[in-house]
């Protein structure tokens, strides 16, 4: 038996922990750079605010509404969701985190405990302890658990936990469930399925296996079909460790010179290294990509990707930033207006023991880098992100004066909340 614990409107709920006055009111959270809306409270959804709406259109389309707006604050979201996961770890026999706001659990070891009661109690504990509302879906497969969590979220009668514990309930749930909302189906296969008259999850699950194979010839679709029919076949390992980590952004404007591009790419690389260290892993391959603005047909277009294999798998910021810088220099071409760049690290494995490559003989240097990274991580954790950064990570300030600013200030975040769980200066004031 599987469960999924899913934070309701995660980013909005994080903001509300320290703004209880916004409970029951429309709230939205913006993407990086305050570009568009990425999270909405139920009240904002009810007003008809769509996900992805560009921020500048919000005031135009909803002129008479009072809507609370926040820039995204991942420092806060990361911290609060880690607390949710910690509670899940304490309450469940086995768990694996799937994304920032979702966590799967395996419940077979719970024996004949009342899982519905367990889920409701878990919801209450997380809500009380962290202030985060979560929905819980429980079912024989991960895909069905996702279906159940949708019901838990939408109908208050479930008291935040929906348990599909019989075939009758499974059929009933699938008949009410639109095919496009099924986990693993998404936009890619929906159009095709609808052409075959498949509109609900039940329509799909009722098709013979041979039909699914003939129509799609795709293992992912086939597994989803099996899971909807109660056959457990998506492996835990498939979701546990991330196979690659990518950090990329679209720029505010467009960039033409290599130096500015290098600053961005260095930051993305440093971010990747930080993520590797946070999950205690190392990467063996670094890749960099750049592309121009595809929406500007009036400008010449260019995109390129390059990767290299490191002599020794590493999570060292200096090594990965250097590799990314070299890769960028190899693919950069002058005369183009670049809109986006990104760094991907792949070939991820556990951090120790790392086999020192014979050709990368400088073991002493390797140990020194490792120590340096640990110190930098510690300083940044204690004193706030980016207290210490590499020289190549330094940005020009937003007004273009000087070069002493950090990544966080180079992107737009006009409505960012404080960080009461990670910075002493930001802790709540008690009158």
């Amino acid at each position, binding site marked *: 038996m599987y469960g999924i614990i899913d934070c309701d409107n995660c980013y909005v709920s994080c903001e509300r922990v320290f703004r209880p006055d916004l409970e029951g009111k429309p709230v939205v959270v913006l993407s990086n750079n305050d570009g568009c809306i990425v999270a909405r409270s139920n009240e904002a959804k009810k007003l008809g605010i769509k996900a992805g709406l560009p921020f500048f259109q919000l005031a135009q389309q909803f002129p008479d509404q009072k809507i609370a707006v926040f820039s995204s604050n991942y420092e806060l979201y990361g911290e609060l969701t880690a607390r949710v996961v910690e*509670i899940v770890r304490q309450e469940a026999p*086995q768990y694996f985190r799937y994304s920032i706001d979702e966590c799967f659990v395996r419940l077979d070891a719970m024996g004949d405990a009342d899982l519905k009661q367990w889920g409701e109690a878990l919801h209450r*504990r997380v809500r009380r*302890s962290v202030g985060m509302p979560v929905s819980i879906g429980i079912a024989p497969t991960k895909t069905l658990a996702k279906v159940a969590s949708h019901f838990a979220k939408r109908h208050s009668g479930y008291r935040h936990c929906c348990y599909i514990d019989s075939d009758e309930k499974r059929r009933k749930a699938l008949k009410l469930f639109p095919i496009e909302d099924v986990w693993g189906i998404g936009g890619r296969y929906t159009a095709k399925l609808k052409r075959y008259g498949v509109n609900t999850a039940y329509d799909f699950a009722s098709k013979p296996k041979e039909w699914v194979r003939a129509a799609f010839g795709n293992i992912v679709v086939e597994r989803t079909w099996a899971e909807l029919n109660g056959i457990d076949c998506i492996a835990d390992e498939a979701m*546990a460790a991330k196979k690659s980590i990518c950090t990329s952004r679209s720029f505010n404007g467009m960039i033409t010179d290599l130096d500015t591009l290098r600053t961005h790419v260095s930051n993305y690389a440093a971010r990747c290294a930080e993520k590797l260290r946070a*999950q205690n892993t190392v990467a063996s391959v670094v890749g960099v990509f750049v592309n121009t603005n595809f929406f500007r047909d009036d400008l010449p277009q260019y995109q390129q990707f390059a990767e290299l294999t490191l002599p020794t798998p590493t999570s060292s910021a200096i090594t990965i930033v250097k590799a990314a810088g070299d890769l960028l220099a190899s693919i950069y071409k002058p005369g183009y207006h670049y809109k986006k760049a990104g760094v991907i690290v792949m070939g991820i494995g556990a951090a120790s023991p790392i086999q020192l490559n014979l050709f990368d003989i400088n073991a002493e240097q390797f140990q020194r880098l490792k120590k340096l990274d640990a110190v930098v991580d510690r300083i940044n954790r204690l004193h706030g992100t980016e207290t210490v950064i590499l020289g190549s990570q330094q940005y020009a300030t937003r007004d273009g004066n000087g070069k002493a600013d950090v990544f966080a200030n180079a992107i737009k975040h006009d409505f960012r909340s404080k960080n009461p769980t990670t910075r002493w200066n930001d802790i*709540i004031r*008690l*009158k």
Partner: protein
Amino acid sequence: MSKIHIIKGEFEKSLELQLANSIKAGFPSPAEDYRHDSLDFNRDLIKHPEATFYGRVDGDSMVEAGINDGDIAIIDRSVEPEDGDVIVAFVNNEFTIKYLDLSHKADGYIELRPANANYKPIRIHDTDNFEVWGVVVWTIHNWKK
């Protein structure tokens, strides 16, 4: 004459949540068995790290309770608030630290009581929508400036 007992404490360890990044067995943390035995404020005073938040006292409304301007309050959201507890609540668009007085609950209201004669208690009639944000379990006052 009051006595001061000197106890050995350890303050260097930082408080970190168990980070979740792979499949692990649930229930108790295996690391717990290997922690050494020195006194540790993070371990001994903070019982529920996942539910603990900090606040800075702003003003003198609780001064007679020994809670001073600038003190740090350790707030545990997971403990059930009881009559007489020092609590944090969100009232009139701000967080406030007060005594929780449940003695008038039968009369249809509760009170948040200050510990300073210059302040009036805050009376809350609509207890349906009122929520205690967290219970103050410790305050820390800095003496050596």
